[in-house]
C-alpha cells in the first residue's frame, strides 16, 4: 500500500461550509492549506453536489473563492488517526501521512436516527439521507414521499424533493405547533433567516405540514408501502414510495474526542478564536454547536484567521457570530425531543442496524459499554454512529471515548500509523471494547 507524505501549514478536516470558509480564509495569508474530506467532492451535506452548480448565491460565492484559492482540496480521504502535528487519512490511492502546523476540525454534523418499527425497510431513508441521494443523482420524479422527524432540515428536504418532481405528501414535525411558531418568530428577527423562511413557505405551499406528528411505523412486506403516523393523538396512514426520516443533527465529535479536545455539554469547547483546549487545534461549525449555515461560515472564517494569526480580522466577525448564536439557541429549544420518541420502538425493533440487535435486548443493560459487550450493539462498522447516538437519547447513556481507528479503514492503513504519542489532553480510555 502506497503512503504519501504531505505537509501543510494549515489542514482543515471537513469540506462543508465551515471547512471551506476556514480553508479559503486561512489561505489568504499565504499559508499552505489543505482541505480534507471523505466524500467524493466537497460541500459537506448542505452544499453536497453544488461545487459545479450552486443552488444559492452564498454557495456559489464560496465555491468560486475556493476554486480560485491555492487551497489543496483532498477529497475521498478519511482521516482515521490524529495526533499532535500529524494525521493519517486513507484514500483510494493509499495512506496520506499529513503533517500540519495548525489543524481546523470542521467535521460537521450527522443526522440523529431514532428506531421505530419498520425503519430498516428498503426505501426508508434518513431525511438528509434522501437529500444526499437526490443530490447525488437519485431521480424522485413522481415518487410519493413522506418526510418526518424534526428540525429545519425537513423543510430543505421537502423543498428539494418537490423541485425534483416528487410528490411530497406531508412534512411531519414532532415538535408542537407553539414551539414551531416561536421558532418562526425567532427566525423573523434576522433578514437572512426571514428570507429563508418565506422562501420555504412559498416552495412548500400546498404541502401539509403537521406538527405534533411523528412516525409510529413504516409498513411494507419487501419494501416500504405506507407510513403510520401519530398526529395530534390520532393515527394516520399514508401510502408512499419513500419515507425520509431524521431527528435533527448531532455533532461529529469522534475526531475531536480522539484528539483529546475538551468536550462540554456535548460540544467541542472553543474560545472566541475557535481554539479548542489543545494547542494548534481549532474547531468550527456544528461540532461547537448546531447553529446552521451562517454560523458555520462565520466560525470557519474566524478559525481560518486565528490559525494564521490574523486576530484582528477574526475579531471583526465576532458580532456576526453572536447574531448567529441567537439563531442556534432558537433551534435548540424549538426542536427539543418529546418524550414519546423514546418509546417508538417495539421490543424487537433493531436499534443497531449493523448487528441487528433488538431494542428490548439493549434496554436491559445499565451502560453503553455493558450493552455493547453483551449484545454486540455498536460493534459494527458504523462504530455506534447510528445506534450509539440513539442510545444516548433513548437510555440516557454516555458513549465511551474513541479509540483507533476513528473510522473503519483497511488493516494495512491502520498498520501504517506509527504514532510518537497521543495529543496532550484528557486521557483516552483504551479499555476493552
Amino acid at each position: 500500500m502506497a503512503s504519501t507524505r504531505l505537509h501543510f501549514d494549515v489542514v482543515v478536516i471537513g469540506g462543508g461550509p465551515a471547512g471551506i470558509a476556514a480553508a479559503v480564509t486561512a489561505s489568504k495569508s499565504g499559508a499552505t492549506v489543505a482541505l480534507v474530506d471523505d466524500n467524493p467532492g466537497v460541500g459537506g451535506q448542505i452544499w453536497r453536489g453544488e461545487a459545479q452548480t450552486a443552488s444559492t448565491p452564498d454557495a456559489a460565492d464560496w465555491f468560486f473563492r475556493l476554486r480560485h484559492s491555492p487551497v489543496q482540496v483532498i477529497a475521498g480521504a478519511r482521516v482515521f488517526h490524529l495526533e499532535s502535528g500529524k494525521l493519517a487519512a486513507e484514500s483510494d490511492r493509499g495512506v496520506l501521512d499529513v503533517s500540519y502546523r495548525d489543524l481546523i476540525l470542521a467535521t460537521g454534523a450527522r443526522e440523529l436516527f431514532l428506531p421505530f418499527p419498520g425503519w430498516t425497510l428498503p426505501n426508508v431513508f434518513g431525511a438528509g439521507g434522501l437529500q444526499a441521494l437526490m443530490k447525488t443523482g437519485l431521480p424522485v420524479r413522481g415518487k410519493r414521499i413522506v418526510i418526518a422527524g424534526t428540525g429545519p432540515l425537513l423543510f430543505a428536504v421537502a423543498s428539494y424533493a418537490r423541485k425534483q418532481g416528487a410528490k411530497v405528501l406531508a412534512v411531519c414535525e414532532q415538535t408542537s405547533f407553539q414551539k414551531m411558531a416561536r421558532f418562526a418568530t425567532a427566525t423573523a428577527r434576522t433578514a437572512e433567516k426571514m428570507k429563508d423562511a418565506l422562501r420555504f413557505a412559498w416552495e412548500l405551499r400546498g404541502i401539509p405540514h403537521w406538527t405534533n406528528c411523528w412516525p409510529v411505523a413504516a409498513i411494507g412486506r419487501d419494501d416500504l408501502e405506507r407510513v403510520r403516523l401519530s398526529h395530534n393523538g390520532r393515527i394516520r396512514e399514508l401510502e408512499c414510495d419513500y419515507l425520509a426520516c431524521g431527528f435533527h443533527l448531532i455533532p461529529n465529535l469522534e475526531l475531536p474526542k480522539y484528539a483529546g479536545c475538551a468536550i462540554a455539554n456535548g460540544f467541542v469547547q472553543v474560545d472566541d478564536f475557535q481554539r479548542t483546549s489543545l494547542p494548534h487545534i481549532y474547531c468550527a461549525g456544528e461540532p461547537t454547536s448546531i447553529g446552521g449555515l451562517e454560523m458555520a461560515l462565520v466560525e470557519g472564517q474566524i478559525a481560518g484567521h486565528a490559525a494564521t494569526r490574523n486576530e484582528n480580522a477574526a475579531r471583526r466577525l465576532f458580532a456576526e457570530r453572536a447574531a448567529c448564536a441567537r439563531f442556534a439557541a432558537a433551534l435548540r429549544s424549538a426542536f427539543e425531543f418529546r418524550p414519546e420518541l423514546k418509546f417508538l420502538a417495539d421490543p424487537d425493533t433493531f436499534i443497531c442496524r449493523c448487528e441487528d440487535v433488538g431494542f428490548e435486548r439493549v434496554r436491559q443493560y445499565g451502560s453503553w459499554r455493558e450493552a455493547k459487550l453483551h449484545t454486540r450493539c455498536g460493534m459494527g462498522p458504523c462504530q455506534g454512529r447510528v445506534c450509539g447516538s440513539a442510545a444516548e437519547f433513548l437510555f440516557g447513556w454516555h458513549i465511551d471515548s474513541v479509540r483507533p481507528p476513528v473510522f473503519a479503514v483497511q488493516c494495512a492503513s491502520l498498520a501504517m500509523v506509527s504514532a510518537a504519542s497521543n495529543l496532550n489532553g484528557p486521557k483516552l480510555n483504551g479499555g476493552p471494547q
Partner: protein
Amino acid sequence: MSVSTEVAIVGAGIVGAACAYELARAGLRTIVVDRGFVGGGATAAGMGHIVVMDDSEAQFALTRYSQTLWDALERELPATVEFERCGTIWVATDDEEIAEVRRKCAYYTQRGVAAQLLNGEELREAEPNLRPSLAGGLLVPGDSVLYPPCAAAYLLDRAREHGADVHLGEQVVAIGKHKVSVGGGTIVADHIVNAAGQHAPELTPGINIKPRKGHLVITDRYAGMIHHQLVELGYLKSAHSVTTDSVAFNVQPRKTGQLLIGSSRQYDIAESTVDTRILARMLERAFEYIPRLRGASSIRTWTGFRAATPDKLPLIGRHPDNASVLLAAGHEGLGITTSLATGRLVADQILGRKTEIPIEPYLPSRQMSSAHA
C-alpha cells in the same frame, strides 16, 4: 448492613462466574460481587480461545481438563456465546518450527489429545489464505472459540437459577477473615473466593500477579477467510518472555465471520490507551501470515490486561494463612480456557471433594510464604 452467606465470590468475570456456577450447583448459598458489570474486565478483552497448551504438565492438565468441561457444556450454551469448535492450527514457518510442531504433536497424541501434522501443502489446503511458503503446521481439531462476556453471563445465569445472588456495581474494599467489606456494608461468608483478576493483589496482599497488556483488532465480516484459530509457534516465545514487549501472530475467525487479530504482550504499562505502534507491529506480523488481511476493514481496536504470574500458572486454592479465602486468579492468557476447571477445583476444595487433576501446582502457597497474613 451485613449479609451472611456460605460463599462470597469477588469478581464477576469468567473465573468468578465459573466458580459461582460450580458452587451454586453444588447447593451452596453464593453471593457474587463485582464493582462493574458481568465480564467487563479481562473477560471482555480476551480472545475467547479454548486451547490445550503444552507449556508444562500442569498447564496441560489444567487446560485439557477445562476443555473437556467446556465440551460437555457445549450443547446447552446459548447462541450468544458463539461457541465454535473450529480447532487451532499452530503455524510453522521453517524447519526449526516444524521440529517443534513434531514435538508438540507427539506430546498431545501421547496424552490423548487429537493432533495432526500438516505439511506445507496440507496447510494451504486447510487455510488457503495463509501465504504459500509456510513450512506446515499442527492441527488440533478439539480446540474451540467462544465469546467470553456472554459465556460469563450464561454461567452466572445458571448460578442464579441455583439460588446465587449477583451484586453488580459494588466495589469490594477489603477481604478479611470470613469478611468481605463492600461500599455499603459487609458480607460474612464461610468461604471467600478472590477472582478479581489483575486486581486480586489489591485484596489479597502478597500474591504475585502482574498485569500484561494486550492489544486486539477486529475486522468487519469476511466469512470463510480463515477456518481455524491460527497461531504462530513464536507465540510461545512471546508468552514466555518476562520482560520485553512482544507481538505474535494469533488470528481467530469469529462465528460472525469477523477476524480477531492479536496478539501483543507488554509489561509495566498501567495505561489502557491503544498504542498505535504496537498495533502496527501486530498487524504487520499478521500480514506476514495472511497477506489478504491487509485489505480487510478494521472496525475496532482495544486493549486488556492479563493477570500474569511468574510461573505462568494461575493461583487456585486456599490462602496458606487465611483459611477462609481461596484464590482463583492469575490466569494470564488462558482465563477463558481454564475458567471451568478453576471453578471445579475451587468447589472441590470448599466441599472437600477429590479433585480430578492434582491441585498442588496451582496452590497459592507455592508463591506465598506462611508469614504473610
